[in-house]
C-alpha cells in the first residue's frame, strides 16, 4: 500500500516489542461504538501512473491563462518565473523542512528568511519586515488589527478603490474585535478624495488604509495627506504591489507606518489564486506589535555568524491568548521563491522589470484609446494596470475576446454593481508582447459602436 513500508515480519516484531497481539488492540482506547467497521466510502487506492493520468485529465478541463493571451490582474499577475527559481525552490532541503525550531539544523531556512526580510525592507524602505503572511489580504487585515492595538482606537478608514476581495477579508478579520470600517470616497481622477479623507479623520481612527496602485490601477499621493493622518493620531497603512516599488516611491519615503502587499508576482505561479504570500514591513518602534515570525542575526558559541527566530514572546506558542496574532505558519516556500527571484533580478533586473511593465501598459493604453468608443476611465497616473470604459458591456468584450483565446481583463461589475457595467480592468506584464496588444485591439475594434451599429 502506498507510503507505508513494513514487511509482515516487521509488524510482528514491533507488536511483540509493544506487547500486544494485533494492531487493533492499539486502538481499543477508542470506544467500541466509534470504531469504523467498514472502509470509508472512498475509492480504493491507485498507482502513481493511474493517478497522474486521472489528474492530467482533470487538469485539461481547465483553460489556463498561461495558455492564452492574458491581461488579467486584480492582485494576481503572470510574470516570468526564472528557471533558477523553479529549480532551487523544488529542492527538498527547502521544501521538506519545517519551522526552524532547532536553528542549528535550520540555518538554510533562517538565512533565506533573513534575506527575504532585507529585500522587503529595502523595497519598502521601512526598517522592519517579517517572515511573510498568508497573502496580501490577510496581511492588510493583520496590519489594521496591529494599528488598532498600537493606537487603542477602533475605526479603520478604507478607500473606495481598495481591492474588493481585500475589503471582504478585512471585514471578516475585524468583526470579532469590534472595529468599525468606514469608507473614504474616490475623486473623479481615480485616486482618494482628500476632502472625504480629511472629513473622516478623528480621534477614533486607528488607521488609514491607502492602496497604491489601487484596485483600478491608479497611483495614490499619500505624501499629500500623510501629515493630516499623523496629526490625527492615526497610522498610515499602505498596501502596495511590490513590483511597482521597482520604480515608484516606497512607503518609507512618505512616512508610512506599516506597509503590506502580495508577493505572488515575485517568482510564484498564479495557481488559481493560492498559495499566495503576503509581506509586512513597519517602522522600528512597532516591531514588538508585529504579528508573524521574525528572524534576527546572531552568533553561535564559537562566534560564527548565524540566524535565529526572535521576539517569540509575541507569538501564540509562548504568549497564548495574549499573542499579537494567532498566526503560526508563514508562507515559507513561497517567500523562498520570492527571495531567490529578487536576488536573481537584483537592482538592475528588478528596475528593468518595472520599467518594461509600465512601458507595455502605457503602449497598450494608448492603443486601446485609439479604438473608437474606448477610453481610459481615470486620469491619475498608473503603473501596469488601468480601467477602460467600453462602449458596450465589459462582459461582452470579455466574452468576445475569450473566444479568440484572449483574457481581456476583469469586468468591474463583478464587484462594483451595474454602474460599472461598461468598465474593464486591464493588466499588463513583461509577458505581454506588442502582438498581444494588436490582437486585443482587433477585438475591441470589432466591438466599437460603428461596427456594432453597422451589423
Amino acid at each position, binding site marked *: 500500500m502506498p507510503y507505508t513500508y513494513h514487511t509482515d515480519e516487521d509488524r510482528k516484531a514491533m507488536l511483540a516489542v509493544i506487547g500486544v497481539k494485533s494492531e487493533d488492540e492499539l486502538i481499543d482506547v477508542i470506544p467500541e461504538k466509534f470504531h469504523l467497521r467498514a472502509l470509508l466510502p472512498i475509492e480504493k487506492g491507485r498507482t502513481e501512473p493511474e493517478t497522474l493520468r486521472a489528474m492530467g485529465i482533470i487538469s485539461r478541463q*481547465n483553460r489556463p491563462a498561461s495558455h492564452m493571451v492574458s491581461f488579467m490582474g486584480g492582485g494576481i499577475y503572470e510574470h516570468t518565473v526564472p528557471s533558477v527559481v523553479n529549480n532551487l525552490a523544488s529542492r527538498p532541503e527547502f*521544501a521538506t523542512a519545517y519551522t526552524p525550531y532547532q536553528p542549528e539544523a535550520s540555518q538554510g531556512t533562517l538565512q533565506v528568511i533573513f534575506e527575504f526580510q532585507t529585500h522587503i525592507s529595502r523595497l519598502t524602505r521601512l526598517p522592519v519586515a517579517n517572515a511573510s503572511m498568508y497573502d496580501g489580504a490577510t496581511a492588510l487585515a493583520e496590519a489594521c488589527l496591529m494599528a488598532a492595538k498600537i493606537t487603542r482606537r477602533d475605526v479603520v478608514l478604507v478607500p473606495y478603490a481598495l481591492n474588493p476581495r481585500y475589503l471582504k477579508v478585512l471585514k471578516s478579520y475585524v468583526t470579532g474585535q*469590534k472595529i468599525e470600517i468606514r469608507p473614504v470616497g474616490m475623486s473623479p481622477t481615480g485616486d482618494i478624495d482628500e476632502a472625504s479623507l480629511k472629513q473622516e479623520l478623528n480621534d477614533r481612527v486607528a488607521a488609514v488604509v491607502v492602496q497604491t496602485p489601487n484596485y483600478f490601477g491608479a497611483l495614490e499621493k499619500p505624501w499629500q495627506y500623510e501629515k493630516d493622518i499623523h496629526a490625527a493620531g492615526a497610522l498610515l497603512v499602505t498596501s502596495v504591489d511590490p513590483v511597482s516599488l521597482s520604480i515608484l516611491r516606497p512607503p518609507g519615503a512618505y512616512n508610512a507606518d506599516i506597509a503590506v502587499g502580495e508577493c505572488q508576482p515575485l517568482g510564484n505561479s498564479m495557481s488559481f489564486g493560492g498559495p499566495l504570500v503576503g509581506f509586512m514591513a513597519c517602522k522600528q518602534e512597532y516591531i514588538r506589535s508585529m504579528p508573524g515570525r521574525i528572524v534576527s542575526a546572531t552568533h553561535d558559541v564559537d562566534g560564527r555568524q548565524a540566524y535565529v527566530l526572535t521576539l*517569540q514572546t509575541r507569538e*501564540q506558542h509562548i504568549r497564548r491568548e495574549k499573542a499579537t496574532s494567532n498566526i503560526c505558519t508563514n508562507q515559507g516556500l513561497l517567500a523562498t521563491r520570492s527571495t531567490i527571484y529578487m536576488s536573481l533580478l537584483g537592482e538592475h533586473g528588478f528596475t528593468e522589470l518595472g520599467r518594461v511593465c509600465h512601458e507595455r501598459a502605457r503602449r497598450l493604453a494608448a492603443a486601446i484609446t485609439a479604438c473608437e468608443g474606448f477610453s481610459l476611465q481615470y486620469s491619475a497616473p498608473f503603473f501596469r494596470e488601468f480601467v477602460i470604459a467600453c462602449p458596450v458591456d465589459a462582459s461582452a468584450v470579455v466574452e468576445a475576446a475569450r473566444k479568440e483565446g484572449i483574457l481581456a481583463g476583469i469586468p468591474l461589475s463583478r464587484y462594483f454593481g451595474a454602474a460599472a457595467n461598461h468598465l474593464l480592468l486591464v493588466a499588463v506584464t513583461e509577458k505581454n508582447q506588442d502582438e498581444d496588444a494588436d490582437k486585443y485591439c482587433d477585438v475591441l475594434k470589432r466591438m466599437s459602436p460603428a461596427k456594432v451599429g453597422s451589423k
Partner: protein
Amino acid sequence: MSTHDFSQTIYGRSRTGRHGYHISSKPVEAPRDIPAPYLRDEPIGLPEVSEPQVMRHYIDLSTKNHHVDKDLFPLGSCTMKYNPKVNDEVAAMQGFAGLHPEQSDADAQGALRVMHGLERLLAAISGMDAVSVQPVAGAQGEMTGLMLARAYFADRNISRHRVLVPDSAHGTNPATATMTGFTTQTFATGKDGRVDLDILKSVLDDDVAVLMLTVPNTLGLFESRIGDIVEMVHKAGGLCYMDGANMNALMGQARPGDFGFDMMHFNLHKTFSTPHGGGGPGSGPVACRSHLEPFLPVPRVVESDGKFHLEYNRPKSIGALHSFFGNFGIYLRAYTYIMRLGSDGIRRGSSTAILNANYLAARIADTYPIPYGKRCMHEFVASGETLKEKHGVRTLDVAKRLLDFGFYAPTVYFPLTVPEALMVEPTETESKETLDRFADALLEIAREAEQSPDVLHEAPTRTPVRRLDETSANRSPVITVPTS
C-alpha cells in the same frame, strides 16, 4: 551591531554593475509620463549577482537544513511524514498552475472539480456534512471555526463569550479565541492526561460558547470519554470544536462527526502529506455539521448538472478569509495523495502511524519515562526529568545531541503539563530500521548523559553552527542586512 559578518549573505556577494537576469533584450528608459513625486528617487539597494552565484549561494544554504527527505523529523504534532513527489508534479501541471483566479468558472471546471471533490473526501473522512477548503493554515481553520460559532449564536440572538481549552492545548487555540473576540478559559487536564468530566463540569455554564479539543490530545492520548464530553457541552448549549492537528491518528479508524463534534479543521500539510516548506504554505480546511453550513466562508463551490460554479450569495456567511479560494496548490497535492491512498491506504496509514509511535515508545520508555503511559496513538510525550535530576542534563541538551546523530529533534517543552517534555511523532512513512536507529540514538544519548554529560551540554558540534545566542538577538534584534 557591526560585529555581524554579512559577507556570506547574497548582499555580501554583490558587485555593482553585475547583471544576473535580463527582462528586456534592449535597455529600457525610466518612465516619462509619471510625474516625479510618484517615482522612486534613489536606488532600491537590491544585490547585483550573477545567475551561477545565485545557484551556488542558495544551494549552499540548502545544505544547512535538516529536512524529512534527509532523515527522520520526529517533531510532535507536526506530522512530518514523507511528501510524495507525485503530488508536486500534479500541482505543477500548467492546467492548474497557470490558472488565474479571476477566470470564468467555465475556464476552471477542472480546478473547481478538485475543490469540490476534496471537500467531499474530507467530509467522508471526518463524518461531517460540509467542508470549506478556504482556510490557509491550521490557525486560520481554528479562526474560521470560532467565527462560525460566533455567527451561529448571533443568528439565534444568544450571547456567549467564553471558549474553553484544556491546559494541554496548542497555543493557537487561546490566541484564536482572543482574535475572534472570545475570552479563553483554560482548565486543568485530569490525572490520566485526559479531560476530567468533573473539572469540565465545574467550568461549564451558559456563557460557554465553544469547547476546543485536540483529539487525540497533545499527549498522544485518545479522549476516551469523548462521547460524554461532547454531550455535556451540548447540554450546556455550547458547541464543540475539534482541532484536527492530530487527525493522522484517526483517519479511517474513527470520525469526529460520530463523536458529536460540530466542527473541526484539518491540516493538509500534516495529515495529507503536503510539504511543510520550511514553515508553510499550509492549508486548514474546516468541516462542520449542517447547522453551521450556512455560515461557511464564501465562495462555496457548488455542483449542478455536472457543472461546477462558485457561489457568493450566502447571506449568513462569515465572509472571506483569503484573497481567493485558499491554497489551491496545496489541496491539489492533498487530493492527489488521497487518490493514491484510497480508503484502504488511509486506514493502513493511520494504523501504521499508531504502530510506529507505540513501538518507539516501548523501546525508550525505560530510559525516558512516559508519564501518562507508553500506550499512545500516533505520538507520545516522554520526559527527560530523570536525566535532569540524575545527571544535570536537560531535555534541551538531549534535543541538541540528536542533531549530532543526524536527526531533527522532537518538539520539546510542550505540552506544558509534562516536565522536560519530548514530544515524539514518527509517522507511518518511517521504516523499522529508521525507528531503531532513532531509539538507539536516544538510548546512547542517555548513556552519554551518565558518563560524559558535557558532551550533551556542548552539543551540537556536527551541525553548521553550534548553540546560538538567542538572548542578545531578543534584546536588540538585527533583522536585515544594514545598508552600507
